[in-house]
């Protein structure tokens, strides 16, 4: 991860887009995955990923970041963008949803709607895992993905969600226990 530091430093110093492109290539799949595992919509995830990088490109020269803080920053942008998307969706669906206007509902809704396609896209095993993950809260899902899929440390995750590391540790353990039990129940 030392090279990210180098890219950030060089981009700020020279303003050459080649350094931004290196960062883009490195983070594109990760940010895409962050959206896709919540929205289960390829096109929407790609659009939101592009929007994240537009924001990053606009502001990267103005901020002083290292590898760790950059990761937290870019995921915070992604997280905020996702929240905006949910709000927009809730506004559109308000009449239909009435009392069920939570983020979790929208995510579950997306999973149900796209299930045949998702089985193909994610693979049967992963699809089953995502179904099991539906029982988790939105934050539990986010934390578990960032920890075990993106391999982030507690500090970075805590920074993204504005919580303490011990809180994140607790959330993670409860989430993994719940997921483990859910997978076990599905097998039986």
């Amino acid at each position: 991860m030392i090279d990210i530091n180098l890219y950030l430093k060089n981009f700020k110093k020279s303003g050459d887009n080649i350094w931004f492109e290196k960062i883009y290539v490195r983070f594109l799949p990760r940010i895409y995955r962050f959206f896709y595992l919540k929205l289960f919509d390829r096109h929407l995830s790609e659009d939101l990923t592009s929007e994240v990088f537009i924001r990053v490109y606009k502001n990267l020269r103005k901020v002083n970041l290292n590898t760790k803080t950059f990761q937290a920053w870019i995921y915070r942008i992604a997280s905020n963008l996702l929240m905006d998307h949910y709000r927009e969706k809730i506004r559109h669906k308000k009449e239909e949803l009435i009392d069920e206007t939570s983020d979790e509902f929208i995510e579950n809704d997306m999973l149900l709607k796209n299930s045949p396609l998702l089985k193909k896209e994610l693979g049967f095993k992963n699809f089953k895992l995502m179904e099991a993950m539906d029982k988790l809260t939105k934050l539990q899902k986010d934390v578990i993905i960032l920890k075990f899929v993106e391999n982030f440390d507690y500090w970075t995750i805590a920074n993204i969600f504005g919580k303490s590391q011990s809180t994140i540790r607790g959330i993670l353990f409860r989430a993994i226990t719940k997921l483990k039990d859910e997978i076990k129940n599905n097998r039986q």
Partner: protein
Amino acid sequence: MKYKTEKIFDNCLKLISKGYSVQYCLKKYSRYKDILEEYFSTVKHLENLKNVKPEDINIAERLNKIYSSVKDSTEPDTNKIKREPAAYGFVRRASILKPALVFAAVLVIMIFSFTGTIYASQDSLPGENLYPVKKTAENIQLFFYPESKKGQLHFKLLNNRIYEADSLMESGSNSDMELVEQLLLEIDEEYYQCKKFNFFKSGNEEETTTAINNIKNKYSSRYGRHSQDIQEHDVYNGDTGESKDSRNGKSGGK
């Protein structure tokens, strides 16, 4: 038990992040092997999600899209209503407040300069530009002073007039004679006021009359004219009212 499992699982994650294998952890915490295996099997499931990737996309094309959209957003759009940052709100409000601020600033400056003028006028002598300011300030002071303390203020004014007359005679030329004469009339007036408000009950009348007599004597020797002449002149010219005539007669007798 749950707390201990949480702690052991956390320790295992720490070890793995340091480069140790899962097997090493299972061996280290062999008592919890079964439960840890279940946890790590779930983690392995999750790791499979790393395979989720965007479809083959043209990176160069996407980057160009990013650059062009950033470029578009930085160019000013005249059709769009410009959203002002929150900080501008204060600036806008400040512009509304501007006349009020200017008025307040002018008021403060006026108060300061007025106070400064009054302060500077305190050492002025008759015939100087600031002397009318000093007199006006004294009159205002007299108007607002409590009745019970007016005697004290008149005594202060009497001393001021004596000092002014003395200073004029010390430094001035013969042309100041009229001013000194006017001051001597005022001294008599202030002396009368002090008596009217019973200020001399405290017992400094003798000192005051001595000072008044001294200044009148000084006037006589300086200009070769007796102070009685002023009073007569004043009275006969009818410049003062009847009561003042009698007052002058009184003070002239001293």
